[in-house]
């Protein structure tokens, strides 16, 4: 990132009045920042623990274990920040808020070390087992925090306007995607919950530092320039993932669950994120698709003796779901939006109860009641059996990988639908409805029709995913589709960022992976998700990855934010 051009001057940017290139202002903390990040980097090459059985082997000098590598990365990041404040990377520093970045990075690193020491204490039997390296890392992190505090924060720097050469930007983006892939692949293999949490914390610390330094603003703008490249890279990475697993199903089964969850969350995102409708029965639409898939699967327990080709089943399942959506949506969407939330909640219950009752005793025998429909055969798509292992270039593609790849295509489809709808007349109509429903109506926007489209369209996609899920899960029962699952999906959408693709994917991956990897966590997962919903709405309603518009909507009175978004928007338009 050597070549940067500042184009901010020309535009009517409210920020340009701020003193822009004044790295001297931060001078006070810089030596400390060098020292702190230097210590952090060096500590990675030292021994952290006497006991070789803790967190991998942390006892070796000059041979860092994964836990130490994370610290190495954090240290190097700190060095980059220090060098941008005063040193060889000064031009980069012109746009970065280095002090705030250093401060947050330091805090993250302190948390990381605190947890590491806690792990050592817990597993090796006492804090005495910690070696100097660990203490060096902790001290380095603390020094970095102090350095960040001493420097002057310059929050309103216009990094969005900084551009590098096209290929450099693309390279950075592709590298980030590759790193993400490696991290996920690595994270999945971690059996030790401590190591897993540490990895998350390390990623969090790096992200906090970069966010503090405003680097994400640059990333956001750059990503929107090269959105096609980025999407392509992400998909290539996702498709490559099964190839990295060497035929092992342990991770692929989790990955497949994550991806089903992500696909469903993306569908919900159309309803909640684009149309602004709170659908609390979304899981029921997934269930409707799954039941259709199961009943038409040719399972010995299926109640209809007809097994159409899978493509037909998919369409029936999706249409059936959409039909339910129309039936629920058409009365409710006419009245206030609040009613929709509670009626969908009720619908979720109706669905579960109906599946429970259609057992031959209380109603016609369609679903086998609480026993559900087990023994659903594997998918067979034009002779391609999803149940067996295939080989690609000699690399085994297992059962789960088959489903994974199919679902990835579904996700791609949903993303195309999502973004094309968003950038169209229909998407504008949805925004207008979210902004001011009455005014939209008065301007001739078909409010009811557009809401119904989102609602039924969301149901359609859920139904589609459901038919595949039925085969993947092998059996379908009513209790898989209860309200709490809907709340869980909603949490993913809200955490990640309503109305964004990347955010919701992130939210879904994090929320699904955590309980899978952390046994103790799964007991508390609903408690934490409930709390998460409340806290997110209070402190960051736009989610981790914020859609520009959503951010503005949730911060109606934040003039400064509006100006900032405006500036970035103008930058994007003028270049």
């Amino acid at each position, binding site marked *: 990132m050597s070549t940067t051009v500042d184009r901010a001057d020309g535009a009517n940017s409210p920020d340009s009045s701020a003193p822009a290139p004044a790295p001297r202002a931060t001078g006070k903390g810089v030596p400390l920042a060098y020292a702190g990040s230097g210590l952090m980097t060096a500590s990675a090459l030292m021994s952290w623990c006497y006991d070789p059985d803790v967190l991998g082997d942390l006892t070796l000098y000059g041979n860092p274990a994964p836990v130490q590598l994370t610290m190495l990365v954090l240290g190097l990041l700190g060095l980059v920040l220090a060098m941008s404040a005063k040193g060889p990377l000064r031009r980069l520093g012109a746009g970065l808020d280095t002090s705030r970045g250093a401060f947050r990075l330091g805090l993250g690193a302190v948390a990381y070390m605190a947890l590491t020491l806690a792990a050592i204490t817990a597993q090796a039997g006492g804090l005495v087992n910690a070696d100097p390296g660990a203490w060096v890392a902790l001290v380095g992190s603390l020094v970095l925090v102090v350095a960040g505090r001493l420097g002057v924060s310059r929050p309103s720097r216009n990094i969005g306007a900084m551009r590098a050469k096209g290929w450099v930007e693309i390279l950075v983006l592709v590298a980030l995607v590759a790193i993400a892939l490696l991290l996920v692949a690595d994270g999945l293999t971690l059996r030790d919950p401590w190591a897993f949490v540490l990895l998350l914390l390390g990623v969090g610390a790096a992200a906090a530092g970069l966010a503090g330094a405003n680097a994400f603003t640059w990333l956001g703008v750059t990503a929107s320039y090269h959105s096609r490249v980025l999407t392509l890279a992400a998909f290539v990475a996702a498709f490559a993932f099964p190839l990295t697993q060497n035929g092992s199903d342990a991770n692929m089964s989790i990955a497949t669950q994550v991806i089903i969850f992500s696909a469903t969350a993306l569908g919900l995102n159309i309803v909640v994120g684009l149309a602004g409708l709170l659908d609390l029965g979304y899981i029921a639409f997934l269930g409707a698709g799954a039941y259709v898939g199961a009943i038409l699967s040719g399972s010995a327990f299926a109640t209809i003796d007809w097994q159409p080709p899978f493509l037909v089943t998919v369409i029936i399942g999706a249409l059936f779901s959409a039909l339910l959506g129309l039936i629920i949506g058409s009365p409710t969407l006419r009245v206030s939006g609040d009613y929709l939330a509670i009626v969908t909640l009720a619908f979720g219950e109706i669905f579960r109860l109906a599946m429970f009752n259609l057992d031959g005793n209380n109603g016609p025998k369609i679903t086998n009641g609480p026993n559900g429909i087990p023994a659903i055969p594997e998918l067979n798509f034009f002779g391609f059996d999803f149940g067996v292992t295939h080989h690609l270039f000699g690399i085994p593609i297992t059962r789960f990988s088959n489903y994974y790849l199919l679902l990835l295509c579904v996700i791609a489809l949903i993303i195309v639908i999502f973004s094309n709808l968003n950038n169209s007349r229909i998407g504008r109509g949805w925004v207008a409805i979210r*902004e001011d429903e009455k005014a939209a109506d*008065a*301007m001739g926007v078909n409010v009811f029709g557009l809401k119904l489209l989102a609602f039924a369209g969301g149901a359609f996609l859920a139904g589609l995913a459901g038919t595949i899920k039925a085969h993947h899960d092998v059996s379908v029962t009513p209790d898989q589709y209860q309200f709490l699952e809907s709340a869980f999906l909603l949490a993913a959408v809200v955490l990640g960022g309503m109305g964004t693709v990347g955010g919701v994917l992130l939210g879904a991956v994090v929320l699904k992976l955590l309980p899978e990897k952390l046994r103790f966590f799964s007991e508390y997962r609903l408690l934490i998700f409930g709390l998460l919903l409340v806290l997110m709405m209070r402190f960051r309603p736009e989610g981790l990855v914020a859609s520009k518009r959503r951010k503005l909507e949730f911060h109606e009175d934040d003039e400064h934010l509006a100006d900032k978004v405006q500036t970035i928007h103008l930058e994007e338009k003028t270049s």
Partner: protein
Amino acid sequence: MSTAVAHDTGAPDAPSGRDVLLEARGVVMRFGGLTAVDDVDLTVREGEIVGLIGPNGAGKTTFFNCLTGLYKPTEGEVRLSGTVLPPKPGRVVRAGMSRTFQNIRLFANMTALENVMVGRYCRTKAGAFDSILRTPRFRREEAQTRERAQELLDYVGLGRSTELLARNMPYGDQRRLEIARALATDPKVLLLDEPTAGMNPQETADAERLIFKIRDSGLAVVVIEHDMRFIFNLCDRVLCLVRGKTLIEGTPGEVQSDPRVIEAYIGTGDGTEPDDPDDIDAKIEAQVEAREAREGGRG
């Protein structure tokens, strides 16, 4: 009673030879015990500017809401070019009547251009499939929408603010943007609810010019205003509402000199001489300001 009189005399200056565009008959709007609009008639012909005046709470905005289908009138009917309009805002807009709001209701977090593009919604057709598949029809329509929206922004004098967020725009520009958005629906009749409220004299003069320009392009305009000078410069005909009823309808001159109008505005009961119109103006302005101060606190 006064409505009948007004219709018999007819407004001398009205271009009565032209076709009737908008015709409202016996519109009544009740909220519980309150009759906000009480048996009001209104006829608007092609190329006419009709003013709607009356003290605060007279029911002017409510009458607009009845015309545009935002409220379902308790009684009465509204015809546009001869066909009865159902009380559905979407249908009314498609039939060719659109409006602005007294308390600006722009889509605050959309850009000026996007706001106007939303106005084109009812004149475009690309559906979900076109949008998802990006069909040629979609691309063509999208380009046309964008082009037309930009034209309209230029027309109202906002050509350079295209990419500004509505919420970041100055107040006067927001009012003009609302007009551009309303024009984007290709209306035959444009209803403006206090288009100059809160504007300085310069902006008011600009707005006046803009409304004339719109009239000259063949649209009929109905405008609610408190600024008397504005009304008298602009309108072919004026309708004065008081407590939901039509007090008088006539030329600006007739309405201006009618003692009942003045009385209604300043509520004299002491039988003193009617004030001079400029004075009324000042009083009304004071009233408007007081109200705005209140609403500002609310918004």
